């Protein structure tokens, strides 16, 4: 216990209630120290403090000045003692105030512009103006308004009205006593210099000298704090973006609402391919169709379809609006515009060009704990000359190494790439290799250029699963969406 606290406790030890003044007198320490000690003791429920609300009268700044210099009417009367003065001579602020109040109290009379002192004025000068006396009374005895004597009450109200005295409501300590716990503590209280809470006073007043700070129980429970955090999926998306940028890739983006053309036709997916069927893809009734501005390219693709798939190909089907089921539509749009630039030969294009995108894709799945209707994918393309499958493997392995995931490759089929590759990552949890995406070398039917001149490496990879591979506390990709803050508060950031 701090010595100030101990001093206060010692005064109260007899069990009687004491006033603040009583403690001040008996404890032998200063007012601030007593108040500080009382605050601490009361917070620990060792003392109980009784307070009374009361109205207190105090001099205002103007009131204090008049106390020193005299009231304006007093000064005026003194100056009038000998002879009358012309009103026009009394032009100062103070003189005008004095004139006002002297006249109201009947201390002066004005005739023909000359101010003369009355007998009441002379009497007041002799025995003192009541207001001045009350001013002194309040100044000497700052405190309760009610203690002002009855006969002076009118003058006091005048002073309040003149804003020389202000009234305010104050809380006043009326009694201090020990609580039951305080009485107990007082018996055992030792004079150790324990400081409970550090305060501004202790720091600036060097109150730490010769004192000890009360230790906390490290094991006792505290109320939990929850930091505001980013969503774990966003964090891994940021990591993926950083990895791409570090590998020399630039970010691109594209619409989620697309005509089928960029999603299927431009990727060489036959118009009767099962992946296009209603049950897998979200088709739209508004907008129902989206026109493809790249008419020439559409013709080229249509011809490639008819030649290779030996079936019908209709523009109408290519312009059906849908929600993109993969991010390759974005790659396809950019690949087309860059290939066009290369073909036109207008601008010198430096190859390879490396691009990536991350965004939401949509599948018309039956929703359950394993399936989401929308989720994230990342796509990347490298447009260059003489690119190889070995280049593709290197790029993907490096990308995943950045986010701490080991991968391997397996042959696979996607209509728009040849060779096609499926990417697998090892799951420590499932103890097996899981498919995380597809990749390959874009068919020349899509670029409309022989691969000898330009070839393109492309891939599309899931994102949610990367997080599941890394964070064993997340059990299913459906956990990542639409959860409340409770879920987020349980997550570990590292």
């Amino acid at each position: 216990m701090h010595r100030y606290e101990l001093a206060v406790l010692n005064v109260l030890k007899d069990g009687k209630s004491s006033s603040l003044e009583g403690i001040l007198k008996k404890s032998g320490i200063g007012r601030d120290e007593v108040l500080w000690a009382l605050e601490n003791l009361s917070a620990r429920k060792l003392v109980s403090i009784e307070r009374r609300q009361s109205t207190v009268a105090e001099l205002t700044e103007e009131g204090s000045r008049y106390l020193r210099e005299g009231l304006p009417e007093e000064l005026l009367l003194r100056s009038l003692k000998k002879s009358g003065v012309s009103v026009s001579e009394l032009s100062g602020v103070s003189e005008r105030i004095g004139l006002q109040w002297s006249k109201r109290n009947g201390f002066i009379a004005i005739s023909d512009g000359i101010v003369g002192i009355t007998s009441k004025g002379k009497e007041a000068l002799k025995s003192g103006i009541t207001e001045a006396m009350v001013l002194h009374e309040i100044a000497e005895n700052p405190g309760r308004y009610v203690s002002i004597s009855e006969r002076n009450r009118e003058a006091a109200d005048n002073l309040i009205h003149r804003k020389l005295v202000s009234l305010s409501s104050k809380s006043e300590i009326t009694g201090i006593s020990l609580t039951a716990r305080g009485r107990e503590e007082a018996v055992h209280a030792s004079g150790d210099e324990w400081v409970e809470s550090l305060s501004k006073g202790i720091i600036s007043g060097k109150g730490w000298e010769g004192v000890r700070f009360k230790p906390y129980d490290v094991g006792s429970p505290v109320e939990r704090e929850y930091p505001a955090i980013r969503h774990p999926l966003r964090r891994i998306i940021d990591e993926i973006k950083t990895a791409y940028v570090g590998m020399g890739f630039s970010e691109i983006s594209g619409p989620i609402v697309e005509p089928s053309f960029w999603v299927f036709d431009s990727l060489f997916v036959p118009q009767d391919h099962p992946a296009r069927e209603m049950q897998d893809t979200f088709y739209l009734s508004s907008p129902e169709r989206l026109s493809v501005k790249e008419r020439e390219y559409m013709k080229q693709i249509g011809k490639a379809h008819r030649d290779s798939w030996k079936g019908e190909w209709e523009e109408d089907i290519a312009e059906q609006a849908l929600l993109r089921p993969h991010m390759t539509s974005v790659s396809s749009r950019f690949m087309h515009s860059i290939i066009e630039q290369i073909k036109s030969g207008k601008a010198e294009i430096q190859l390879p060009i490396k691009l990536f995108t991350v965004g939401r894709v949509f599948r018309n799945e039956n929703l359950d704990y394993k399936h989401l209707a929308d989720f994230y994918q990342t796509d990347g393309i490298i447009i260059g000359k003489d690119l190889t499958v070995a280049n593709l493997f290197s790029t993907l392995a490096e990308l995943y190494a950045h986010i701490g995931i080991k991968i391997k490759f397996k042959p696979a089929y996607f209509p728009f790439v040849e060779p096609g590759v499926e990417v697998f990552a090892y799951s420590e949890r499932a103890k097996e290799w899981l498919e995380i995406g597809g990749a390959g070398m874009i068919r020349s039917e899509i670029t409309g250029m022989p691969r000898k001149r330009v070839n393109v490496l492309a891939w599309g990879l899931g994102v949610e699963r990367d997080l599941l591979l890394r964070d064993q506390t997340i059990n299913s990709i459906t956990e990542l969406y639409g959860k409340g803050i409770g879920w987020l508060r349980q997550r570990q950031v590292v």
Partner: protein
Amino acid sequence: MPVITFRMEYLSRLIGKSFSKKKLESEALALGFETERMDDKEVSIEITPNRPDLFTAIGFVRALKYFEHRKTYLGYTLGESSPSFEIFVEKGVERVRPFISAVVARNLELDEDALADLINFSEKFCELYGRRRRKIAMGMHDLSGCTPPFHYGAYGDEKFTPLNATEEASFSEVLNEHEKGVQYGGILGGNATALYPALKDAKGVMALIPIINSERTKISSKTKDMLIDITGTSEYLVGKTADLLASIFMDLGADIERVSVRYPTKSDIFPKAERRYLEIELSRMEQEIGVAIGSGNMISLANKMGYEAAIVGRNMRFSVPPYRLDIINEQDIIEDIAIAYGYDYIAPITVPSIGSGNLSKSSVLFSRVSELMIGLGFSEMLNSYLTNEKANFSEMRIAEDKDYVKIKNPKAESITMVRTWVLPSILRSIGLSRHDRMPQKVFELDLAVMMKGEKPSEEYHLAAAAAGPKVNFNDAKAIAEALLHSLSPSSNILKYEHPSFIEGRCASIALDGKVIGFFGELHPEVLFNAGIEEPTIGMEMNISALLGE
């Protein structure tokens, strides 16, 4: 991905002595096919849809044997031979199902396993490659029950005894009542002209195409001679399917005979089973794969994948077997060479970069906005972009907007549209966690889509909400001001009314006279609808507008 199930006993018999389950699994994987399930009786393997030649145990084992260099190259071609039967195509059928081809296989020695494999192949092939029989369908007939000549045409409502039935039924009855008729009748378009494609011989109907065969021509394990009809909408694929079937029967040890198809104005012969050659520069193949292979090795790799290969100058000439329906051009062969080489053995080579990469302008802005929100104590939420009218409009006290992105084929009532704003999503998040400690402060920065005329307009919105017993309008304003101080100092906060917010406790964020966002105290009805039990403030702001988008 198609999953094909083979009988283990049959598979091991076809593979021979060297069979082991482990080897089967690893070789299938090396070829790109994952084993989904395996026990003593059966194995289910995922076959990529471009390889229907592997939908039979016969074809699959053929590929494995080539891969192990245990099979010498067989061209699967047919020498000159004149057709043994004719199919006359009658006028009118071109309007319903225009093309037909056929294969005759003689001197078969089938057993139950081989028969089951053939039937399974036919089902899977027509389902997957034939697009549920619409594009291609096939029917297998016991030739001993048939009497030429054969006719293929579109007929009126005739009677026959369908496969496995005891009584006769008319075409229309089959379509309306038979399981297969109900399943595939849609292909005939339920046509009002009531023309039914059918294959007939001298005795009558052999098959209602592409629905069901007749009981009369039913095949069994005792069938010695078989006629297989192939019909469809693509002349090319109908012909190629005959080649594929011929390869299967050749491996089964049968003798293949040709069939002449006589259209009213032309005629054709099937199966063609012709040799096809593709030439590719050796250096081109090595270049695309990224490894030095050499011509000797290249021939060996080609053989592993079932090609006969020869060096012709600087090129490799590949003979493509007729059953490879997937080989469009040289790119497809390069993939096969890469597979034969082994993806695991292709050593990675880094692609050099020209200059450094960069994030998009919006990505940079979004991460700054998110940083600000975290700094203000808001946690980040993630929600589906998909919603329904109730959640997006009515629960937010908004009259339904006519123009928004609507889903044509929803599978669930909960998903009928793309959200037009983000705030409803995060309010639902708070509703879900209403029993967690308050105050709760959350945000989401992601896409919302509106319709601007005929075109969708995709905008990134920042939505934020805070719930707790002491939350009020002033908190919302303080947050908005804190954000605008950094993001858009020239924006103004103005009086605003929005049905989701309490009247008089809502304000807009305006930039250059345009409202780009709003915030305020959410209306208690909105909170009630979201399951929130504490006062809540909300904000929605179009961040794309700050990018001048």
